[in-house]
């Protein structure tokens, strides 16, 4: 057993660190650290910087213009980026749609859409969930009816993250209402400029509006925008979800949150001393740190197994549960570190207590990160996946 990175991996990490040091604007990193909403231009600007190094699509093979990184390299990149508070790569085009088109799309679709993802021509969003179909995704109802060389789409999608910035949406639509629910679903690419598409923001309890509702009212979509075969969309959707869950452990984000918590606890006073010296609080912080140490290795063990060709099974569900538990515990501890100062909730644009940006970020982060255990298949759904596999033995 060798627990250390290879010389190549270490050199790769040094490369990433040097890039982040040179290219990441400290003001932007501060916005990310304080959980402020980034503008579209800020996100696109970061994508462009990464793309100029060929690093935007670490998960794509080189033949499609990606970096062709190994799972370990992707992990290193994600961890270093998170610890430096770099903007997150918006996943919808790069991490979700890209792999689906590469595996199931036609040559024409690959040639047209993949370069546009890399150069920023398109901003994709995801049309999966519906008001009646959250965790029970197969019961979705948004329908597409073939009419000549078009599909006519009617229905509603929800939880469309960053859909307010998007010009394209990949959707699961119902093309057959008879038979098994999973067998009547198709995967359709829809231009959001088409007449009949309406986007409405959903304000969340931390005051942000990063998710949206999307309505389709007789929206005509060229049949050429169907990915793969009609009624086979469920297969593609499942393939996409396994990709969505690749960085689900969020080791880098947890590590960054732990660094931040330690910094806060050192600055915050308790009984006249730094809070980090308080044995009760220090023990709580140590408890989460120990959990994170184990989870980080669980993550690497699973990445390493995947690199040797073992297909990920219930491991990604395990990482989702443990990773989100750890991050939510870190968020809660950071709020508790602030005590009475955690009472304000002021987001960008509102004036808050002077010099208290960090305390404000703590409450906003706690509220916003309740989503971690809900989205991408709630932790309850993950437990059902694990227990279902355990029952089969």
């Amino acid at each position: 057993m060798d627990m250390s990175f290879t010389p190549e991996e270490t050199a790769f990490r040094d490369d990433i660190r040097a890039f982040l040091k040179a290219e990441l604007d400290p003001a932007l990193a501060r916005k990310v650290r304080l959980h402020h909403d980034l503008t579209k231009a800020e996100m696109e600007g970061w994508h462009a910087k990464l793309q100029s190094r060929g690093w935007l699509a670490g998960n794509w093979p080189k033949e499609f213009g990606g970096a062709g990184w190994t799972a370990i390299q992707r992990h290193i990149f994600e961890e270093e980026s998170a610890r430096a508070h770099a903007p997150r790569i918006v996943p919808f085009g790069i991490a979700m749609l890209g792999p689906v088109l590469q595996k199931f799309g036609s040559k024409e679709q690959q040639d047209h859409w993949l370069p546009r993802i890399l150069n920023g021509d398109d901003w994709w969003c995801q049309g999966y969930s519906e008001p009646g179909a959250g965790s029970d995704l197969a019961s979705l109802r948004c329908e597409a009816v073939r009419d000549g060389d078009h599909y006519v789409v009617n229905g509603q999608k929800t939880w469309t993250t960053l859909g307010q910035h998007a010009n394209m949406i990949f959707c699961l639509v119902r093309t057959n209402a008879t038979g098994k629910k999973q067998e009547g679903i198709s995967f359709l690419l829809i231009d959001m400029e088409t007449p009949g598409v309406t986007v409405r923001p959903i304000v969340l309890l931390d005051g942000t509006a990063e998710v949206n509702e999307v309505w389709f009212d007789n929206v005509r979509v060229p049949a050429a925008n169907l990915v793969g075969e009609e009624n086979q969309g469920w297969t593609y959707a499942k393939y996409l979800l396994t990709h969505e869950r690749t960085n689900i452990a969020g080791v880098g984000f947890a590590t960054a949150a732990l660094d931040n918590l330690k910094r806060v606890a050192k600055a915050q006073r308790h009984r006249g001393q730094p809070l980090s010296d308080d044995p009760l609080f220090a023990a709580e912080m140590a408890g989460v740190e120990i959990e994170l140490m184990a989870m980080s290795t669980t993550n690497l063990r699973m990445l390493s197994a995947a690199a040797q060709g073992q297909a990920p099974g219930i491991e990604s569900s395990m990482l989702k549960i443990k990773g989100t538990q750890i991050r939510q515990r870190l968020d809660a501890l950071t709020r508790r570190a602030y005590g009475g100062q955690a009472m304000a909730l002021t987001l960008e644009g509102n004036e808050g207590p002077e010099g208290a940006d960090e305390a404000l970020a703590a409450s906003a982060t706690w509220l916003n990160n309740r989503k971690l255990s809900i989205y991408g298949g709630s932790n309850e759904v993950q437990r059902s996946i694990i227990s279902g596999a355990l029952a089969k033995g």
Partner: protein
Amino acid sequence: MDFQLSDDHRMLQDSLRGILARHSGEALMPALLEAGVPQALLTEAEGGFDGSGAAVALIFEALGRAGASLPLIGTMIGAAALAQAGQPADDGATIAFADAEPGTRYDRGVAISVDGDRLTGRKTMVAGAEGAAAIIVTTADALWLVAPDAAGLTVRPYPLMDDQRGADLIFEATPATRLGALADFDTVLARGVLAHAAYALGTLSAAVDLTLDYLRTRKQFGQPLIAFQALAHRAADLSVEVEQARSAVTNFAGHLDADAPLRDRHLQACKVTLGRVARLVAEESVQLHGGIGMTEEYALGGMIRRLLAADTAMGDADFHLERFARGEPAFA
């Protein structure tokens, strides 16, 4: 042993429920004033007619259940403290209670200092500071009265978690009147802690009820959510915790006028229990709802924020647990 409300308290509860059913938003405070609710929070000696633990608990539980965010706790603490110091406040005037300080969890006198009868430094997260008729300020070991238009006082307002307006108060050699040692006002402050705990109880009961309604009506995979055992058992755990929280408030309310050491143990136990259950309900009720529970349009979101705020106010669960374990008094 009798856990039933007295006839007077039942009447108070009925009248309060009626007001809360008819009024909300800006119309609520005048209606509460007209019905004499603030007077029910004060003892006869303080110019009120009740001020018992039972009255405070039932009033703030009802306000919490109704989701009413009003600067009533500060007003109650302030009016009682002023009365005790022989300077009764005007009926109907809002009083702000400035306790929390920046840079520290719950230490007092770190960010603010006293020179003679002048205060210099800062208080933070002060609810209802805008438009207050008086401001009561804590320092390391004393309670002070500051006029809202005092020289050298700057008020910087912003929104709080619980939808109230809060403010930073910046004192620059601001003249203040010393009301007395902090320890002399422990019964007054204890009533404030009870109010926060009872408010949390009302809020978390409402959040759990809303969650149970959702689990009974929302269908996934062809069944109502409550039919899934993994969710049903967690709903059951929440209902157990609501009863624990109710008992903790009852214990403290029943011992509000007990000797300080006994009262403080119940105070600390109550705030620890309510803080723990409030956090649990905040986390679990969102999770059991799923995404809808995170939206501003749905009623749960505001409840979550008010639960977090109620835990945080006047010492959170961590703060009071430590004092309970060390056998320390609540205010000293």
